Structures are given as C-alpha cells and as structure tokens.
C-alpha cells in the first residue's frame, strides 16, 4: 500500500471536503431542497433575524426575489399570488401582481402584493407553496387554477423521490458542493447564455414525453380530477384559516386557420364557480379577456400574457376585490412588498 496515496490526491480530497463544509455552512439555504424539485415544504422562504422573510430561488422554487415582514403590519392588506408561469409574468414588474399592488396603493389600500408563482408548477406544488404562505397571515390568497402543468408536477415528483433513494445515479449530487456547482452553472451560465429556443430543443425527450402524455385521454382525465381534488383541498384550507381566497381560472388562446382566435377555459370556469362560496371568490380569465376587443393581442403565446394582458388582469382583479367588498374599511398605512434585488 506504500505510495498508493499521493499528495495530489490527498489535496484533492481535502479541497473537496473543505468546499463541502463551506457549502454546507454558507450556501445550505440555497441548495437545500434543490433535489426536491419544488416539493420541499420550506424551500425558497428564508426567515431572517431582522424579522423579514425573503423569497429566493431554491429547491426548485424559482421565486422572484422579494422580501416582506414576517408579521403582517397592522392594517396591511397582504396578497399572495400562487400559480405557474402565467401569474409569474414576463418579469417581476411586468407581472400583474406588481401592477395589482400599485393599483391597490393608488387607491389608498396599504397593500403588500407578493408574487409566489413559479413556472411549471401544477396544482400539487402550488398547494405546498400555499401551505407555507398561509403561515404568514395573508389577507388574501389569489390561487391560479390550471391543468397544463400536471405532467411536470408528476415528473418532478418522480425525480424528487428517486433522489431521496440511494440509487448510484444520484451519489454525486449527495454532496452539497457538487449540487451547488451544478446549480450555479445551470442558472448563471446555461440559462443566461443559451437562448430559450436552443434549450427547448435540447430537452426534446422531455417535451416529447409531455406531448405524448397530454394526448392520452385517460391521463388528462386523471389530471383534471387531481386539479379538482387538490384545488378543493386548498380552498378548504383557506376557509378553515378564515383567509379569503380568489380562484383565477386560466384560459388558453386557441387558433385555427379556419376560424378567428377563441378563448377556451377547458371547463375550469365551471370548477371555479362550483367552489365559489363564502370567503371563496372566482374570476374567469376567459371572461376577462372575452370582453376585450382583439384580445389575442394581449397574449404572448397560447397561454402567457404580454405586459398589456397583465395590466388588464390586474384591473379586473382589483375590480373584483372591490365588488366583493374585500377592500372595504382598509386605510392607508406603511407596508409594501419590496423587491430584494
């Protein structure tokens, strides 16, 4: 065995160990839950010593970086928006959540509007975000209802479960430092330097599998059923905690060369109406946009909105809140969500 271990090898091991310790000490928060793929109960929420809560990208939850006081200031109207890429918006300030906050404050409502939406999140992962968000005393939850992300929810669940096991495929990533390096390259190099169009083509197999699943009638029926069940559970949770909840049922722009563009809610509006009741409100995106001339001009693609579309949605939600009397009696005070960076 003499001479088997060389100083260079020892140095490599020592460096990896030191980096690992460093990663666990300094970056544990960023990396924790990375391989839970959004199923970690707390990832993305950091409670700071100064009494604020920071939202950051972690654990598969790529929140827009924001911060807010852990304890809701007296009289503040705290709105959490939970959903997928549609409420997340083209940018932090381009999303309707920011515009809604501005609109509320313009109307003397001391609002904190926080965008907790994450691209690709289906109903199950939104539910986990809701579980966490509800701990911070929201005045209102806006929950987007959609069924196009169930494939991703399922896939990421499988990945998270696989990673928890001791399959050799995941051994490398059990080290924090390796996870951190992987994550850094993915977010700071790959996403920044490789255009989305190339990244999409690169992930062809995933896209193919998603398309195949979405064409399977049985699969889509199961997804709809899950959306119904989990949304009902979310509504029940908000009700039990006496937190008003606004369900925004999403719609899609469907175009056919033979016809003019039309909006389809894929029966989500019926679900929203069915669940509506005391403390539970419903807004149909289809109805919001159907009454706008040339509504298709507000869509960036079949589902996502342009900034103008977000503006329309912010207006509609504000109007809905007024109509439902949710803003009655609120007065101007300090308190506003701030963008962390």
């Amino acid at each position: 065995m003499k001479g088997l271990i060389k100083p260079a090898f020892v140095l490599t091991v020592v460096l990896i160990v030191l980096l690992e310790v460093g990663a666990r000490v300094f970056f544990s928060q960023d990396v924790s839950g990375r391989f839970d793929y959004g199923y970690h109960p707390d990832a993305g929420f950091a409670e700071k010593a100064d009494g604020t809560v920071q939202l950051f990208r972690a654990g598969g939850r790529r929140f827009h970086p924001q911060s807010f006081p852990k304890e809701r200031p007296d009289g503040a109207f705290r709105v959490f928006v939970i959903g997928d890429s549609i409420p997340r918006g083209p940018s932090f300030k381009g999303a309707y959540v920011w515009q809604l906050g501005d609109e509320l404050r313009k109307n003397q409502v001391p609002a904190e509007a926080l965008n907790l939406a994450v691209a690709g999140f289906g109903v199950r992962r939104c539910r986990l975000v809701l579980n966490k968000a509800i701990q911070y005393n929201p005045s209102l939850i806006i929950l987007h209802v959609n069924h196009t992300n169930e494939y991703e929810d399922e896939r990421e669940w499988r990945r998270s479960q696989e990673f928890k096991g001791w399959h050799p495929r995941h051994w490398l990533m059990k080290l924090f430092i390796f996870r951190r390096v992987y994550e850094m390259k993915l977010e700071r190099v790959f996403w920044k330097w490789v255009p989305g169009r190339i990244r999409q083509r690169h992930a062809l197999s995933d896209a193919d599998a998603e398309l195949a699943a979405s064409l399977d009638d049985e699969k889509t029926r199961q997804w709809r059923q899950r959306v119904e069940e989990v949304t009902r559970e979310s509504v029940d949770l908000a009700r039990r905690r006496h937190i008003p909840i606004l369900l925004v049922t999403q719609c899609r722009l469907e175009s056919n060369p033979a016809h003019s563009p039309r909006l389809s809610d894929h029966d989500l509006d019926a679900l929203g109406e069915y669940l509506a009741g005391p403390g539970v409100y419903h807004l149909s995106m289809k109805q919001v946009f159907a009454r706008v001339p040339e509504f298709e001009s507000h869509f960036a693609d079949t589902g996502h909105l342009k900034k103008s579309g977000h503006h329309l949605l912010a207006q509609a939600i504000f109007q809905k809140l007024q109509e439902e009397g949710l803003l009655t009696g609120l007065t101007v005070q300090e308190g506003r969500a701030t963008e962390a960076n």
Partner: protein
Amino acid sequence: MSFITWQYFLFLPLIFALYWQLPPRGRLPLLLAASYFFYACWDVRFLALVLTTTVIDYICGLSLGGRKLGRGWVLLLALLPAAWLGVSHLVFSFWGWGQVSPTLIAVAGALGLAFFAAHEGVWAWGGDKRNKGLLILSVGFCLAILGFFKYFNFFVDSAQNLLRFTGLQANFVLLHIILPVGISFYTFQSLGYVIDVYRGTSPACADFLTFATFDAFFPQMVSGPIERGKNLIPQLEDLGIFHNSYIHDGLRLILVGLFKKVFVADNCAVIASYAFDPQTALNGPWAILGVVAFAFQIYGDFSGYTDIARGSAKMLGIDLMENFRFPYFARNPSDFWSRWHISLSTWFRDYLYIPLGGNRGARWDTIRNLAVTMLLAGLWHGANWIFVIWGAFHGALLILYRFAPFLSGFMAKEEKLWWRRAAAVILMFLLTLVGWAIFRSASLAQLGSWFAALGNWQAGDLSWQKPSLWLLFHIAPLLLLQTITWKHGDEAKLEHLPWPARGLLYTALLLLVVSSSEQDQEFIYFQF
C-alpha cells in the same frame, strides 16, 4: 454499457478489485467474461457477431502460423456463435425477455458450417497458395459481415438510384438492419491481427481465451483505439503484478476523459445540434459557431472516450495505444492524420496505403493511393455519401499538400518561424472545420445550406454573442489543459506538474465534470 453511466462506475471498480485479487491465471477468464458482459449490455445477440469474428480470425491466424487445429475443434468453434444464440434463445424464452429468432440461429449455424468447409478446403491447398487463401477467407468473411450489417442498405439504395439515373427501374428490397455497436472497430482490429500473422510480423496467438479477450477487451472494443495484436496480445499473455502507478495513471486518464466528454463535448453539442438542425435558419455567424462547436464536440467526445478507455485498461495493468495527440495544433493535413484517430489512420496506412504502393511510385500512383485510402477511410465512418465526401475532401488536402509547392512550403512541419507555424496551424484548423461541416451535415442539401449561410451576414432571429460565450466557456479550459500538457506530447500527462498544482487541477476538473453531469449523451463514435 457506456463509459459515462453509473453502471460503468460500479462495473469498473468491481472488475478492478476482482482482477487484482485473482491469481494471474484467473484474470484472463475474468477479463473475457467482463468484456462479453460489457458488450452484451447493448444487445446479447450481437455477441454472436463478435464471437464469429473471433473464431474466424483465431482459426485463420493459427492456420497461417502453421498450427492447424483438429477438424473437430474447428467445427466446434465455428458453431460457437450459433450455440450462443441458441442458449440465448432458451434463456430469453424461459425468462420471458423476448426471443432470439430461430432463423438467426440457423443463419449463424450455416455461416459456421460454410466457414468450416472453406477453411478445410483451403488448408488442403498447401504452400503460399494456402496462406493467401486463408487470408482471403478471413478478410472475406469479416468484411462480408461488416458489409452486410453496415453497408447493405447503402449499396442497395445507391445501386437503385444509379439505375434510376440511367433511366432503368429497379425496386430492390431494403432490410431493417440494426448496426451492431463497435462493429467497425473490432472487425478492423481482428483483421489487422490476421494480416500481421500473414506477413509474419506478429506470431499467431495459440490460446483461444487470449485471442478472444484481445478481440473483445471491454475498454477499447466499441470505440477503439483499434489495437494491434503485437501490442495487446503479449500484454494479455503476461498479466503482471500490481503497481501503484496503474491506479494513479488510470484514474488521471479517466478524469481527463470525463472532462473532455462531459464538460467539453456534451456542452458544445448544445450549440452544434441547434446549428445543424435542418429546421434552423442559418446565417454566417451561426454557421461558424455551429461548426466550431461540432469540432470541439467530436474531439472531446472521441478523445474523451479514448482517455477513459486507456485509463480503464491502465487500471488493469494494460497499456493501450495513444489515439489523439493535439490534433487541432496540426500544421498540415499529413500532420493532422498523425494526430487524429491515430489507431485508424495508421491502420489504413499499414494495411491499405502501403500495400497499394504508398508514395513509392509515380506521382499519379501516389495520388491514386491517397485517394483510395481516404475514400475508404471516409466510408469506414458510415454508410452515407457524406462520409465519402468527407474522406475525399481530406484526400484532396493530402494530395494538395504533397504536390502543391506553395501549400507544402507554407505548412511544412519543420518551419522555424513561430508566426508561420501559427499561421499554418490556423489554416489547418480552418480546413479541418470545413471537413467537419461536411461530416456533420445530414445531407448534401444541408451542406449546401451551410456553405450558403457563410455568405449571409445579416442578423438572424437568434443572437450568436451569448452562445459564443457558452462555447468559449467550455473550450477555454480544454485549451488551457492542452497548453499545460503540450510540451510532454500526451494530452493527459500531468506528472510533470508539482503535486499542489496537480491537486488543484484535479479538483477543478472534477468540479467542471460535476457542473455538467446531468446531460446524458451517447458517444458519437458508437455509431461507427
């Protein structure tokens, strides 16, 4: 089983541990069993093809060496591939894993009997005629198998098109043939051995186990290096004692190989795949970006594979030949081919170019020899006219370099002035890029679009600046590594560095590999 799968990273340490625990006489059977298992992980049926090549070349090699096996043994060995398929059929049926077609078993049996009859017939001839007959028998059978599995549809399709072009109608049947992994590599390795025995430059291998391991040695079986019998067989015959350096050198080679494959090649592939996607509307910057990306993808992919192969073999105490030596620093076409896929280029040189006459004859003879060699080297890469054109392009470069005074002067290897050397390297790299554009194009039409795009410098709908940063990010560490190793002539040689520098370098390489570890891409050369 691919080198970059988790299975391999369990397989190799297991084989390593068992191998050095066993007494020397037990190691060869272990290597053979491990090699067959490694190959069977792709497709159990194709192991019958490996066995066929092994049996034919073992028997012919032995006969060429004047030590003919008894008839019973020849028959038994000749029927070994059919027996393997038969056993697979029974096992598959029993476990419900599918079926090995009985027709396939019958064809393998018939092929074995045909070989047996031919071999016995040729043996009866005696003298020099017998040796030639045995060589033709071995080369003919092996090339027939390679030709059927790799080129059958290509030739049938080409013949059909030719007939159509001349106004004749023909409807030949195209078969659905799966290309067995690594068939070109192990067939050429085996053929090289038989030719060496025929020439008397290598002794015949008497031990079947040794020869079978030589033919199927798992680190290099599916993508080379294409070994020579005289290098590998003596090492397999004398599996020595363990040295610490085996594990040091082996792990270092594997780390460098993983870096080239996982960090360099797979990330360059992101850009290359987009640029060479038929749906992409190319412009000048993207055409260049795409081909540069592919140049580093194919180099990182193949030389990375070679390094992992060499590292794996080294851990078992076996030295494989070098296959790449800084090819993009070549100063002329001849220099390039002495640095790129060395085991293949020297194979073609030794077994085709020189037997054709090499450069010993008149100018036109040399031109013919170069052209034939490079066309066939191109065709070796795949059953597609694109590869033939690629071979022709490199053949033309070699001919021009040899006979155009300006080019041979400018690109001379002995040039003393550094700037002229640098200019020659740049020119050669640009020419290599044109070659890669041909190689990567899926069709002649796509190749035409690539050349047309070079004249279009209008801004496209996708910016090229950030993707070029991505490319640079992955190429720069490779070039840095090559700068460190350049003076020592081996791409993975790092022993000259002080140990702290080596430690830092290993850590950096490891982190770079890990940073790209979720992209799972197959090695390009598996398809050849």
